[in-house]
């Protein structure tokens, strides 16, 4: 390994770590908010990670420091402790805040285009690539006419 690739690899690992650190810092910051049962707490965290913080909008309620996110974390843990299923808790949240609270939008008629877009883009790209490879580049150009040959020799004649 040359020093150059070693440096590149270190940089890569550091970037990876930097990308992972928010995950490590996630979840409830105050231990008193956590559920005593680690399995229930893990479930609550998994549900919370799918819920949008409505204040910060691009963070989950598990990642956000907003007051509302803290309240919603509390509500999720309340429902988990009561023995409700993930589905029931999700429905409770969607019933109040709409599908907007779900960080992963459900597959409906309205979101169909959103979900099939990657496949659609791949198909269009593959189709375009297929067509352009199949079509012969350019046929051999026709031989020059007399007039063209005369003009060419005129243009290339040394002055």
């Amino acid at each position: 390994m040359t020093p150059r690739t070693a440096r590149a690899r270190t940089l890569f690992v550091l970037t990876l770590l930097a990308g992972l650190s928010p995950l490590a810092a996630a979840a409830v910051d105050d231990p008193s908010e956590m559920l005593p049962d680690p399995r229930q707490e893990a479930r609550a965290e998994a549900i919370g990670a799918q819920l949008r913080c409505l204040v910060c909008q691009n963070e989950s309620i598990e990642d956000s420091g907003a007051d509302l996110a803290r309240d919603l974390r509390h509500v999720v843990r309340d429902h988990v402790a009561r023995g409700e299923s993930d589905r029931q808790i999700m429905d409770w949240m969607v019933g109040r805040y709409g599908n907007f609270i779900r960080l992963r939008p459900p597959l409906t008629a309205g979101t169909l285009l959103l979900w099939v877009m990657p496949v659609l883009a791949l198909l269009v790209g593959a189709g375009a690539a297929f067509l352009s490879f199949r079509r012969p580049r350019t046929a051999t150009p026709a031989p020059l006419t007399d007039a063209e040959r005369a003009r060419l020799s005129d243009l290339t004649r040394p002055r």
Partner: protein
Amino acid sequence: MSDTAAPRPASTTRRRVLMAAPLVVAGAAGVGFWRMLSGMTQGSFDPHDIHVPVLDRPVPDFALPDQAPGQGFGAADLRALTRPVLVNFFASWCIPCVAEMPVLNALKDRLPIWGIAYKDKPDNAAGFVRRAGNPYARIAGDLPGLTAIDWGVSGVPESFLIGPGGVIRWHTAAPLGEDTIHDTLLPLAASLTR
């Protein structure tokens, strides 16, 4: 000559179409963004205005303590309504709420406003309402903020128009302005009164 010249126009057209395609896409995106941005400045589009699914449903069950300087209210009071009422979530710590108070004071004689103090200490909320000239006919206090979650509130100020029977008829997550009041809120309230 005619043999070689024939395919040329077709391929130039195709090339022109291919070159124009990204421009058309960029143009369409530009028009879209322009509409979003102009909507944001005119107030017709607000990315923070979350559309709650509570519309056309009765208000959720809640019982809250009274908040000075008004008499409190609960879900039962809203369901007993025969005329529309505007329910306004506010807080003394919320700057847009301060700015909204003159608008609410101008509105209160045409549409009764009931306030809910959201995550606000009772003393702070009372002082804030008194200083602002109290636009509220009745005020309740939601210090834990959990009733607000049942209503789908994501921040303050937020307003809900409650029709007869306690049904939520309209909602905004933005501070009320004169335009919204005259163009949307008052006509809707009038249609519910009839």
